[in-house]
């Protein structure tokens, strides 16, 4: 069986990287065995024992990286060898000892090495976050700003800049998003589908997207805005941009908006912007459902209802029944609840529970 060998002088990688590359090579078609090691005598001795030591490998020095592949035929061996550079680059974020064997350490370097990137996730200490986000927007990247402790003034400035550039600025303090099927931050793995979400509440977004998946449907895009977006000061800049994006997204057929109660003025602006050809489900907890209804949109009062109604709409079904079903669902548990209540002493009046996530607490 042919053995293909390659020496990479002065190429230094850590042991885990080299073992992972060897494992990837072993998984390639017709590859029988592979070694990716520094060319020390001790390692060459192990290669000899494994029948991988060629004359070319014998010439290696301890400062050379040796790659040897034993395969069923020469084409397979050559293909595996050709893949090594890419595998090393993927493992270490760079090439084979040519000066790029590491991950980019700055946003500019990342943009240089990933010219086709169009979104930056920024998670640095708050006082540096605005600067990095501004840099990303100036480079033409959408931004998911995971960081918190960004000032209100910076948030407004960033979102204004994003609007001028036609970009999305999700956050600050945007904990979750799903963009083109890729989960960012604390996102849940959900199927892709026809329901788009814009949410000013991270746990609300997670809850609704998970519930949509549980009901057998999927999510086209899920855009987190950050918790302050619908405040009077910020004016819902990201939610408005998100609505516009989903209205023009051909994959999105139903839109869900989620928030704790926004300011009155911002509510009016958002609802006006949301009116369009696609059905929009509005879950602004604590807001007046009449206002939503008069705007021609569909009001719901819980996260569960939001998911149920969105799924029904995505299936072309009417949306009233799911709301009723959600309202009646607790009744099924009534006998059990009454049985538990009967065990309580007359003085026991409280149920103590722990719920994390702002909107979940609010809903509870």
């Amino acid at each position, binding site marked *: 069986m042919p053995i293909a060998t390659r020496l990479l002088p002065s190429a230094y990688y850590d042991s885990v990287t080299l073992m992972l590359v*060897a494992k990837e090579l072993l998984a390639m078609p017709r590859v029988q065995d592979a070694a990716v090691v520094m060319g020390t005598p001790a390692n060459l001795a192990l290669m000899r024992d494994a029948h991988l030591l060629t004359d070319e490998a014998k010439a290696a020095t301890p400062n050379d990286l040796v790659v040897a592949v034993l395969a069923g035929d020469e084409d397979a061996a050559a293909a595996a060898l050709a893949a090594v550079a890419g595998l090393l680059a993927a493992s270490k974020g760079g090439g084979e000892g040519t*000066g790029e064997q590491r991950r980019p350490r700055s946003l500019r370097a990342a943009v240089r090495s990933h010219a086709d990137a169009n979104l930056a996730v920024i998670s640095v200490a708050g006082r540096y976050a605005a600067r990095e986000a501004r840099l990303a927007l100036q480079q033409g990247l959408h931004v998911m700003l995971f960081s918190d402790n960004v000032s209100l003034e910076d948030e407004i400035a960033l979102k204004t800049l994003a609007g001028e550039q036609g970009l999305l600025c999700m956050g600050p303090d945007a904990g979750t998003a799903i963009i083109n099927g890729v989960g960012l931050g604390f996102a849940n793995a959900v199927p892709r589908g026809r329901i788009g979400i814009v949410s000013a509440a991270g746990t609300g977004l997670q809850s609704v997207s998970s519930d949509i998946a549980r009901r057998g449907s999927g999510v086209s895009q899920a855009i987190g805005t950050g918790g302050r977006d619908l405040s009077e000061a910020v004016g819902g800049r990201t939610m408005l941009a998100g609505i516009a994006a989903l209205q023009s997204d051909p994959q999105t057929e139903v839109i869900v908006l989620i928030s704790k109660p926004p300011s009155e003025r911002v509510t009016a602006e958002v609802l006006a912007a949301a009116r369009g050809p696609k059905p929009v489900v509005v879950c602004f907890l604590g807001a007046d459902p009449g206002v939503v209804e008069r705007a021609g949109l569909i009001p719901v009062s819980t996260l569960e209802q939001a998911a149920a109604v969105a799924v029904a709409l995505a299936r072309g079904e009417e949306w009233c029944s799911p709301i009723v079903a959600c309202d009646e669902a607790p009744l099924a548990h009534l006998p059990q609840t009454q049985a538990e209540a009967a065990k309580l002493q007359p003085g026991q009046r409280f149920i103590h529970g722990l719920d994390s996530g702002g909107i979940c607490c609010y809903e509870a």
Partner: protein
Amino acid sequence: MHLESISTRVSPILRRPGFQATVESAFSEAVNLVTPAGAALALVSRRIGNGPLNAVVSHFQVLASLLHPGDTIHGDGAALSLGQDWRLALAPAADWDPHPDYSILARRPRVVAGNLDWLRHHLLLEAPPTSLAAPRPAVTPGAFSGPPASVRIQMHAGELIDGLKDAQSRGDLNQVAALASRLAGLGPGLTPAGDDWLAGWLVGLRAAAAMDDEDRPLAVNAVAQAVVDSARARTSRLSLAFLQAAADGAVAQAWHALLAALPDADPMPLHRAAAEIMHHGATSGSDMLAGFLVAPFPAFP
């Protein structure tokens, strides 16, 4: 951007007018340099911190984005520079002695013994499965790649380590050198696992020697010299430089913390130091700790 501290082992080299070095490899927290004379040293982040070959750089990430393998760095005694792009001032850097005070281990030998027991147990539980600290694999490897490669290395290293312990206890310096030469350079990465283990073993021998006055079958310095001589030309430049430093008793700041924590009855400093050491590299820290703990420390009932 400036140098904050420099190991006394490399300070004279860096501060010499006419200094020149080439970037040999670059990682997220360290840039390794080699001089035309073959001396290895490293510019590192604060997170890596002081070490026998290290110069700690303020704002390392800025520097790292500018340096690439093959670049040549020059020094004029006052600063390091790469062309017109940047200058690293040397004057603010304090010299840091990489040689810890081994004698403190003799002050409370029973506490040290108890802490060493905890360390052995901790390492067994927490070391990465591919490290030499992991329990010996019971399976026979099928191929020299992926997990079987690490198993093959562990098995081979295990036999050599048993032999080294025996040779050291019998005072057989020739056998120590022979076995060390086969362990040196064993392992795939930048600092092969065999070298890390040997470095830890030499530090352990020095620490054990500091704990008792009995005549040892082999003087630590003789063993250290034999190991370094046998590893020469059998491992990479950088790894040999680390091994040479360990042979001289020079270790990174996390090891200073560990040695200081061993005679301490408070367990927290020891826990922190062990965690920091084991966090170093993929398996390097655990491999070195495994070697350290194999040294013949005095036992107490």
